[in-house]
């Protein structure tokens, strides 16, 4: 029996009236990969943030290598050899990778010495764990995958023995994820301890040695991974039977609702992000766009949703409403009127105003709607009602419509956005990463909703880095690489590996 790296006993934490952790006890063993799963808002991140000294527990004890310790802040945690990769990365966007890594561990009074030392050390780490990152790149310009590696490097550079990752794969492609797991295994084999929070059972089964399941702030299960399978975990987690398969009838799609022609996009530096994109989405079909993140899917969605002006091309709704995209962008408000809804990839920055209450967020973009107005004012009761409806339809937790959206866990934030956009009963739905950072319970619900809409004859364009999701939902799958569509596969013929090749840019 390996010796104990971390022992948490009776951890309890409240945020105002939200009880995030209730008397949580947990043991993590040296040299193992320990998974923590649970629904959104179960308290996983909070618990780990406490271990990392980012929050203080209201009560409870922490032991590191059998020594009782007081972790007052991240500094203490770092000294105890604990490192954490937060889910929303803790990086300074306009700093270089190197600067981000040395930050807080600069060594000397002047930067130069510290940076040079770090550069060398970094090379070493890069070799050991195959984390290739350009030390001089500006972090803000890196993809999420790379940013995450920077976070890991930060931890290792500080000599972390215990590495905590909060939903590391939430923003990664399968390839990136696999790479990450290789890194984690390498770390374990070097005797380091890894704690990983995730919503993806496949990953849990793949990489972890032990799993702790949380629900509503409490630990409801503690098992050896070897002894369980997906379904067991899912049920443990949600506390009811969940169906991991999405069953959907085959339907023959109707007329073309969304017709995109010759869309191209150059950025300021003249780099082509989109090259002559042509695609059609018919009534009653879900068209999935698969691709390694950063290959233009996000931009495509932004252009179609009127957030980015394209440099070429046009799009057609229901055959009649034509939008010339060249040089300018269709007003999102107009698009909504025409019945085009948009679920943005970056919910926390675009889809929500975190300081606004949930009920205010549930009219964002539809704030002109007649049914919520009374004269020139809002009909407050109607607003609240609407929000309440969303909350119970999508079982958003906590259920108080007056809470600030920022107080919800991201998973629940996502549900608010979804509820809002679906509720407008659009004909065309532009969907980006609908289940990023969302728990299975919610995923099941969200997937059901999307299929329902499709069956009602909506046209849905789905962008996701989750291959499983694409495979599960789509009727047709387009693959994007390097800003152009590199292939189209009917869903029933598609396989993860096949798509993987296309995504890598390999024509089949």
């Amino acid at each position, binding site marked *: 029996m390996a010796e104990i790296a971390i022992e948490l006993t009776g951890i309890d934490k409240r*945020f105002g009236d939200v009880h995030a952790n209730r008397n949580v006890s947990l043991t993590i063993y040296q040299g193992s990969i320990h998974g923590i799963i649970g629904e959104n808002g179960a308290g996983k991140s909070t618990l780990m943030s406490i271990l*990392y000294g*980012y*929050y203080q527990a209201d009560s409870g004890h922490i032991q590191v290598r059998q020594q009782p310790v007081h972790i007052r*802040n*991240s*500094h203490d*945690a*770092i*000294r105890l050899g604990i490192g*954490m990769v*937060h889910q929303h990365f*803790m*990086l*300074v*966007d*306009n*700093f270089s990778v190197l*600067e*981000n890594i*040395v*930050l*807080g*561990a*600069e060594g*000397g*009074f*002047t*930067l*130069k010495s*510290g940076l040079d030392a770090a550069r060398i050390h970094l090379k070493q780490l890069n070799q050991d764990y195959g984390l290739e990152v350009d030390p001089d790149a500006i972090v803000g310009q890196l993809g999420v995958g790379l940013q995450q590696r920077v976070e890991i490097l*930060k931890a290792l550079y*500080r000599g972390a023995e215990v590495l905590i990752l909060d939903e590391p794969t939430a923003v990664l492609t399968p390839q990136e994820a696999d790479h990450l797991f290789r890194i984690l295994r390498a770390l374990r084999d070097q005797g380091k301890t890894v704690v990983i929070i995730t919503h993806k059972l496949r990953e849990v089964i793949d990489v972890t040695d032990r799993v702790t399941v949380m629900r509503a702030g409490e630990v409801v299960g503690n098992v050896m991974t070897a002894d369980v399978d997906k379904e067991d975990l899912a049920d443990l987690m949600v506390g009811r039977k969940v169906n991991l398969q999405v069953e959907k009838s085959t339907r023959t799609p109707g007329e073309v609702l969304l017709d995109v022609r010759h869309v191209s996009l150059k950025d300021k530096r003249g780099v082509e992000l989109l090259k002559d994109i042509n695609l059609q989405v018919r009534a009653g079909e879900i068209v999935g766009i698969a691709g390694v993140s950063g290959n233009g899917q996000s931009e495509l969605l932004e252009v179609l949703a009127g957030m980015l002006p394209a440099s070429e091309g046009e799009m057609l709704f229901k055959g009649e409403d034509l939008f010339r995209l060249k040089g300018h962008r269709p007003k999102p408000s107009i698009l909504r009127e025409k019945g085009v809804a948009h679920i943005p990839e970056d919910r926390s920055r675009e889809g929500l105003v*975190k300081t606004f209450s949930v009920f205010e967020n549930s009219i964002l973009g539809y704030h002109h709607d007649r049914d919520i107005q009374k004269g020139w004012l809002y009909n407050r009761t109607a607003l609240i009602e609407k929000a309440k409806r969303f909350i119970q339809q999508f079982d958003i937790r906590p259920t108080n419509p007056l809470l*600030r959206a*920022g*107080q919800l866990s991201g998973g629940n934030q996502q549900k608010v956005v979804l509820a809002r956009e679906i509720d407008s009963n659009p004909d065309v739905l532009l969907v980006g990463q609908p289940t990023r950072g969302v728990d299975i319970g919610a995923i099941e619900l969200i997937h059901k909703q999307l299929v329902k809409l499709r069956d009602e004859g909506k046209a849905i364009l789905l962008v996701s880095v989750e291959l499983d999701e694409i495979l599960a939902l789509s009727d047709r799958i387009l693959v994007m690489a390097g800003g152009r569509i590199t292939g189209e596969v009917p869903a029933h013929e598609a396989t993860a590996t096949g798509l993987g090749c296309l995504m890598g840019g390999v024509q089949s």
Partner: protein
Amino acid sequence: MDLLFSILESTLRAATPLMLASLAGLFSERSGVVDISLEGKILAAAFASASVAYISHSPWMGMAAGMGVAVALAMVHAFVSVTYNGNQLISGMAINIIASGLTPVLGLAWFQQGGNSPQLESDMRFHEIAWPGVDAVRDIPFIGPFYSHLISGHSIIVYLTFIIIPVVTWFIYRSRFGLRVRAVGENPHAADTAGISVARIRYTALFWGGLLCGMAGTFLSVYQTGGFIREMSAGKGFLALAALIFGKWRPVPAVIGCLLFAFFDAIQIRLEGVSLPMVGEVPSQLIQVIPYVLTVLLMAGFVGRATAPKAIGVPFVKSR
């Protein structure tokens, strides 16, 4: 020719307090703390330095006092904005108002001169420093006026300022402290999880800011005017802030901003009352808006969107 140089000379003089103040602002705002209290700190420092210089017969004691008081106010601001997570704008306002109220009250109580300090005699003041050989070179074209107007004949504080500018720039961009200040101002959560005490960094930053404001105030009362007059900061703190934003929170551009303000001002002073060909005498008010109008035009024309440090003005609270 000579005119040009004398314009540049007065530019340097007028710019000095502005440059010091906007570098002060730089420290604080780069660390994520809005500082509209520059004005108040300058005023308070001007008063303290003049009073102490008068009592101690030593300008240096004066400067020390000025710095002390400015730092004290900076620490109040730090307590409110950092320890307290209070509203930084309000805190700044309060400090300005307190300074403009308290200085005359104390002045009246101590010197019975209507809230002003007594005029400082020459041994209590800083003086222009004439460099060797000024008179020798004076008549050489270009070199002469350049040397005598720009290089020689300024107060020690002016020279100090021009040492401070590169030092501060280095600090911000090349030192550990600078890196942390910038990090704390951009994303305090990142800094915090990297094991840095956001609070300590912000306090330190405001401390340095205080020192610089102290110098600015001392320059006004102990060197330039030779005494304290009520409200003598006369909006310089806000101009400095404007320059800082104008320079997009970067040291050198901010300094350039200050020099521009001062330069426009110097020109404006020279233009006034001079009757131009055709136009005749231009009304003084028209001339006096030149600096402000030019600033607006510059902002609109060249400077473009100024993006503040991301975390500026938001207290660092670990809660959603």
